[in-house]
């Protein structure tokens, strides 16, 4: 949407959001309208050529907190009102055969680090707390642009009572159960340009490697802290489950070491993914390109 359209929408929500939220349609009417679609289950009703498909994805007894709409151009728009509806939305995406998942960002998650871009967006959302924001988080995704064997994951979180979705990322294997709030270390160790004594200078590969190791250590320490302090966060239980990890095909017994980008890193007590560093004892390491944070997805926020 253009800037004018966005500003107008914010004005409308500010002035009429409360009134609109209180509008209740007659239950009988809503039930009559939704039931046929529910009876159809996951099948799609074609109302003729040139008609968009609307799939209502919730129980008839309660208002849906999410929706997956198929657009005329073949893309899908996923709308989410409540964070709790994430499972329903993912179930419907799975039913439609779309390899994309909304993934909750939560403290205490030790499965997967949040991609750096999403961290910035989340910080921005936190800085906007208390200001008007759209009540429904929406994102658009194109299933045709998801390569075979990869999943599109969409970091999703709640700030100041509002659900946000961030730019999607492609990742190898299955989608993780959650994202950590801690930023992932860089995927690729390259000579970096830094400001040194007022002059631009290139870090040597050794210095860059050292920095990457420090970032990884910071992540592990932070993730370890959150694991010990938020044991009942609801997601930490997935940390040791290789089936839920970001790259389950590469998971193995803990305690060994994995190698990525020439870095030798110690595996944590549980199997998890840290940016591009996948602790995969007994299996070949994941290459940098099959990591997650460096690969941007095909869709962004709407």
């Amino acid at each position, binding site marked *: *949407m*253009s*800037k*004018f*359209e966005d*500003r*107008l*929408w914010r*004005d*409308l*929500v500010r*002035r*009429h*959001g409360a*009134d*609109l*939220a*209180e*509008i*209740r*349609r007659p239950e009988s009417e*809503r039930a009559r*309208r*939704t039931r046929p679609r529910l009876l159809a289950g996951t099948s799609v009703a074609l*109302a003729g050529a*040139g*008609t*968009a498909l*609307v799939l*209502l994805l*919730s129980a008839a007894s309660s*208002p*849906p*907190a*999410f*929706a997956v*709409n198929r*657009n*005329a*151009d073949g893309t899908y728009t996923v*709308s989410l*009102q409540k964070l709790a509806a994430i499972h329903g939305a993912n179930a419907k995406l799975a039913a439609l055969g779309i390899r994309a998942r909304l993934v909750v960002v939560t403290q205490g998650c030790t499965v997967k680090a949040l991609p750096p871009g999403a961290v910035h967006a989340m910080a921005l959302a936190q800085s906007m707390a208390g200001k008007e924001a*759209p*009540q*429904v988080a929406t994102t658009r995704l194109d299933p045709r642009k998801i390569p075979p064997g990869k999943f599109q994951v969409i970091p999703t979180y709640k700030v100041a009572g509002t659900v946000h979705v961030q730019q999607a990322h492609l990742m190898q294997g299955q989608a993780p159960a959650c994202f950590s709030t801690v930023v992932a270390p860089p995927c690729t160790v390259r000579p970096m340009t830094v400001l040194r004594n007022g002059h631009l200078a290139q870090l040597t590969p050794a210095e860059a490697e050292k920095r990457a190791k420090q970032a990884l250590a910071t992540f592990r320490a932070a993730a370890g802290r959150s694991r010990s302090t938020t044991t009942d966060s609801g997601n930490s239980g997935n940390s040791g489950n290789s089936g839920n990890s970001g790259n389950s095909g590469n998971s193995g017994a803990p305690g060994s070491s994995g190698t990525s980008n020439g870095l030798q890193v110690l595996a944590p007590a549980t199997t998890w993914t840290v940016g591009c560093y996948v602790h995969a004892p007994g299996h070949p390491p994941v290459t940098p390109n099959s990591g997650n944070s460096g690969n941007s997805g095909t869709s962004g926020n709407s």
Partner: protein
Amino acid sequence: MVSESDRETATVSSGPSGSALADFEHIYRHNIGVVMAYFARRCGEPQVVADLTSETFVRAAGGFGSFDPRRGTARAWLFGIAGHVFAGHCAQSANGRDVVARLAQHRALDSDEIEELAAKIDAERAGRELIERCAQLPELERAAVEFVDLAGLTPKEAATALGVSRVVLRKRLSRARARLRKEHQGDE
């Protein structure tokens, strides 16, 4: 002009998707472009287009509780409101009063928004010329041509928006097209 995809999404806009706020947002996002284009064809000033568009959606938000999708699509409903807003604007302008500024609490646009709206107005130049060519047609015929041939409404939606039966709309539309065709052939 409205593309086929716009027409398709317009069909979506009348579908329920949850709470009233979510429904209204869906309607807003799928119709803001066509409503803005409607005013852009009629006004050359970005600020006026912005005000009239704002006023239409402010009224729509206020009256969303009474919107019944069984009586017509959201797009038809919005164009009905837009028609009233424009008529009010014309009447008040003739009286020398800026009613829109009062009703929509006139929000000043920044330079980016003015640029966006100016581009929209420019894009609707062809449509504006067609409306000018329809100036000699009766009001209903002119509105039928604009709603169906320019705004992309279906004849059924246009009939709902204009408050006439489908039969009347089709007759008027057919008559208007015939007149325009004849006039065009006369020009050649």
